[in-house]
């Protein structure tokens, strides 16, 4: 997973959050947020979905992704040579603990007003760490089968309720109990996509019984457009925005939408 230049991140990263149809119609701000940070040794990507029912959730989601990129990157930088496995799970949990502590300190007694989900991916050399609270999701691109790129949905935390619009938040009293972590060690991973539940219907397919799998045509398209070498162009940025705001996606889910994607830059 090493590029030609050791000082440069091997990942090309791009994404955005856009307000959904319902919020736009009601003149409400986008309550989703995403952020990332990158260095030569580690990249951290984070997405968050502020609770529609809470008054300051758009601030909550922004604060969550800012804190996540900062604290997960700091923890990962001091331990980038950690071997995949238990040590990575612990690193993720410790970083989450840091995030929660600062989040609750900053929001104080009104923390519940800032309720938000949080999904984080840490891309380090030799491993990929994933932590999620709430209903965000992560799809990886790794390997080929019969010439077809393969996509994999990382496991999500258990559903909190029968109803799809009810989930667990960073600020939920027992959030730590609902946190899900993964450590993936696979040099074949060359694409990572993070999203909030606003894209769950577009990006994931459901089989009878509810088992989820990536919508291959969706994953193909959003990775393909980032595989183009060089910096992300204004028109590529605009294209993703147009996709996320399209009526076609709105009909599936009128909520805010977030897509943060990373692909491994082509090896020289």
């Amino acid at each position, binding site marked *: 997973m090493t590029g030609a230049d050791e000082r440069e991140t091997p990942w090309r990263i791009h994404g955005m959050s856009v307000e959904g149809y319902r919020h736009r119609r009601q003149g409400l701000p986008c309550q989703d947020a995403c952020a990332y940070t990158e260095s030569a040794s580690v990249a951290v990507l984070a997405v968050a979905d502020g609770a529609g029912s809470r008054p300051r959730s758009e601030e909550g989601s922004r604060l969550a992704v800012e804190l996540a990129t900062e604290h997960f990157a700091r923890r990962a930088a001091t331990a980038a040579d950690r071997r995949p496995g238990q040590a990575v799970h612990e690193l993720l949990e410790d970083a989450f603990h840091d995030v929660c502590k600062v989040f609750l300190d900053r929001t104080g007694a009104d923390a519940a007003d800032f309720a938000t989900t949080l999904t984080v991916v840490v891309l380090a050399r030799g491993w990929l760490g994933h932590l999620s609270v709430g209903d965000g999701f992560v799809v990886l691109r790794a390997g080929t089968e019969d010439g077809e790129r393969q996509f994999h949905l990382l496991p999500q935390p258990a559903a909190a309720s029968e*109803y799809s*619009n009810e989930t667990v938040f960073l600020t939920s009293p027992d959030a730590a109990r609902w946190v899900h972590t993964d450590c993936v060690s696979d040099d074949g991973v060359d694409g990572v996509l993070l999203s909030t539940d606003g894209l769950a*219907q577009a990006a994931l397919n459901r089989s009878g019984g509810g088992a989820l799998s990536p*919508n291959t045509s969706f994953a193909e398209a959003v990775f393909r457009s980032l595989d183009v070498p060089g910096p992300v162009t204004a028109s590529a940025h605009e294209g993703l925005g147009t996709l996320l705001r399209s009526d076609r996606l*709105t009909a599936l889910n*009128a909520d805010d939408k977030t897509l943060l994607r990373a692909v491994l830059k082509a090896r020289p």
Partner: protein
Amino acid sequence: MHSDYPPTLPAEYADIEFENNAQRLPLVLCLDISSSMAGQPIQTLNNALAEWTRELHDDVSLSYSVEVAVVTFGGNGVAAWRGPQLLAPRAPVSPFVPAHMFRPPQLAAAGVTLMTEALELSMHIVAARKAELRASGLQYYRPQICLVTDGLPTDATGHLTDSWHRLVPVLADEQRARRFRLYAIGVGGITDRGEQVLQSFAPKFNARLQGFPFRELLQMMSASANAEQKGAGDEVFEKIFSQFKTQRPAWES
């Protein structure tokens, strides 16, 4: 406000294939069409259903998510409708129609007020629909049942009956378990006793309204469906409902 979103996908994403797996929100309109609704009231109801249907079709966020079923009580008893089509009793067909395909039935008023049986049928079709959605792997929101009546429960011969008492503990359990939200609305000349029945059925979401404000009622159901999709807390539903009761359009503000 009309959507100003681009109608088509950008060229680079045009080959994405989507399944129709929007999260579903089952909505049952459980409507009194007994003889007391004859004349202007039933006409007002038919008109309101037609107008609401148009609005629902135009609402991008509800049209692929909300599924509408109509249950009526009147005439010879209790009936389920699949859009405009009256279903035979125990027909193996779901009465739920996706909102973007829903067309309202033309209702005529006659007969008795089998309110208890209509609510039982409403609960039954909601439970059956949830099972179908689960089996096909689709997610759903908490369903809504909206009971609308201008009278008191009767038996099949049109005599007042106390059989509705059997429903009270059942509905209390179901609502406590959050299996659906029940709205119970009295219209027209509903009596104090009629109102008490509705209060027993839906302690939080009951109302006694002047006249036949079906338009506002259906708009309130849409507003609640929107709140449900947003994951709003109970206080939001209570606010929408209380503003509806005082006939101020909360969903406009």
